[in-house]
């Protein structure tokens, strides 16, 4: 079959413009697929990386409603919990309102007990504990704004309002590396509570780290039962469910992305199949001649399928390469909100399988037609 490759190549060059347009359509489709996958990973990749041994507890109604600070101490008493960390959303912006930040306020004493995966030098952890106005920041956000250790940074925020204006002076004492949170800034919860009456003795949610991940269902149930029938009931879940639910608040992104990808591929299937069908129809006499010369049905079928596969694989690889480039740029631009935007190994594998499937399915009918072609009919022109 290898020595027939130049024939396949020559067939592709038969109508160069048509081949080029089909090739580009396939490239665009695979670029779109790559980008959709990258965005899906951006939204849901966090759920896959979420700690299997962590539970989240928030207000039963919504995450916007706060919990009493005392809840943290009561949750800690539930058997099976190793440590807890309470947190609140801060958000904020830097320099102007368009530069929104992803800032959390957390209890620094227990933060690293609950999140051992954060990589940060010990000295920086101690510095964070030593100063109420200290913050630590992910390496991406620090790089984005050119922040260095020791920099004083004015964070702006109107909610929660501050008693003496809306500027929160903080000092950067640590830069951490944790792949799904490198766009985040973490300030101290006590600084937030003392600065804003709105946050005094109130917290956003509690993260519990369990001794044994298998206890998650029991522990979450036990936590919620602590506050059942109170004025502030809670809703606890695994961190994975929490991250997934959070992403779903933007809409059922997974379903939307799947629908778009399906539409794109169905269209591509029609475009490629049409190109191949036209190409084979135009070559009816030529295929008849080849069979006359002794080319077997298998050889002719193989050539048509190879032609279709070459088209989809070459186009697909170009599209995927473009998607890698564009998703890299997107990751850089959206590192604060979607630091996990990327085309991972499984997306690449799916794309490669789709290239193969598209080539085979689009080439199947024309290949079958070429195989069934009777020489005498073909020499008469089809």
């Amino acid at each position, binding site marked *: 079959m290898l020595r027939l490759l130049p024939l396949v190549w020559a067939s592709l*060059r038969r109508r160069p413009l048509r081949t080029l347009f089909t090739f580009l359509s396939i490239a665009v489709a695979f670029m779109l697929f790559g980008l959709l996958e990258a965005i899906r990973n951006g939204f849901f990749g966090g759920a896959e990386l979420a700690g299997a041994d962590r539970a989240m507890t928030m207000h039963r109604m919504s995450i916007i409603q706060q919990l009493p600070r005392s809840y943290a101490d009561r949750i800690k008493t539930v058997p099976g919990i190793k440590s807890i960390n309470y947190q609140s959303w801060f958000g904020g912006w830097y320099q102007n309102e368009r530069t929104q930040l992803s800032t959390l306020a957390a209890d620094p004493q227990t933060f690293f007990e609950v999140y051992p995966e954060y990589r940060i030098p010990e000295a920086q952890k101690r510095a964070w504990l030593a100063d109420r106005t200290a913050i630590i920041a992910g390496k991406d956000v620090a790089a984005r704004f050119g922040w260095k250790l020791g920099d004083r940074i004015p964070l702006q925020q109107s909610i929660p309002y501050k008693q003496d204006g809306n500027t929160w002076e903080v000092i950067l004492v640590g830069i951490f590396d944790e792949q799904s949170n490198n766009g985040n800034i973490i300030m101290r919860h006590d600084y937030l509570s003392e600065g804003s009456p709105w946050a005094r003795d109130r917290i956003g949610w509690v993260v519990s780290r369990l001794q044994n991940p298998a206890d998650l269902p029991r522990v979450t149930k036990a936590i919620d039962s602590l506050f059942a029938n109170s004025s502030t009931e809670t809703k606890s879940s695994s961190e994975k469910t929490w991250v997934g639910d959070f992403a779903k608040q933007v809409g059922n992104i997974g379903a939307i992305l799947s629908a778009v990808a399906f539409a794109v591929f169905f269209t591509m299937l029609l475009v490629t199949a049409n190109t191949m069908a036209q190409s084979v129809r135009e070559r009816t006499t030529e295929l008849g001649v080849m069979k*006359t*010369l*002794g080319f077997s049905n298998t050889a002719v079928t193989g050539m048509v399928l190879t032609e279709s596969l070459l088209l989809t694989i070459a186009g697909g690889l170009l599209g995927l390469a473009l998607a890698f480039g564009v998703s890299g740029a997107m990751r850089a631009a959206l590192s604060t909100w979607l630091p996990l935007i990327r085309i991972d190994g499984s997306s690449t594998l799916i794309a490669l399988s789709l290239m193969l499937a598209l080539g085979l399915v689009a080439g199947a009918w024309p290949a079958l037609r070429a195989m069934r072609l009777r*020489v005498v009919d073909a020499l008469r022109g089809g």
Partner: protein
Amino acid sequence: MSDAPIVRIRELSKVYRRGAEDLRVLDRLSLDVPRGDFLALMGPSGSGKSTLLNLIGGLDRPTSGTIEVAGAALEGLSDSALTRWRADNVGFIFQMYNLLPVLTAERNVELPLLLTDMNRAERSRRVAAALSLVGLGDRARHRPRELSGGQEQRVGIARAIITDPQILLCDEPTGDLDRKSGDEVLDLLQALNAQQGKTIIMVTHDPRAAARARHTLHVDKGMLVQEVA
């Protein structure tokens, strides 16, 4: 062995079904073609001569009768065996040349050799020899659209003889050519018959072309009607 006819046809019939009607194109035709013959088949359109040529070349199956070509009983061969047999034993020359437009002259001639296990150097050597035999050694890199009709047909002849088949089947080989080009093609066929001993069976409407053959047979209504020369 060499006295045995290269083509031996007995009681050959071919019937096509057109809707509810049977169309008998060949009717119990019997024919022997001696090895090394140059035979012209003439007859009006629809007489069955091209069908006969297709059956001799193993491109079609008879409805009944037997057909033995170059020692093989074609009606007994499977489709794949017939395809292999064709590649080894028969060269085809068509009225419309039927070259692949995307390939150069040399690549067109090389096509049948791609089915053999011959290496690239040997293939190139044989292609060059065949093109030079048909007088087109200097047109090897030209595509069909860059050649005249006569040149295209000569490339077609080079392709037909590249595997050194015993028998050449020509369907109106001069039908689309002017007189001069037609004469050149016929000169070439005569030379292949006389010098290389190729058996040639040629379907033609043109009495001038038929005159170049050693024998001419007329086919009408699916039967041989008379021998002219």
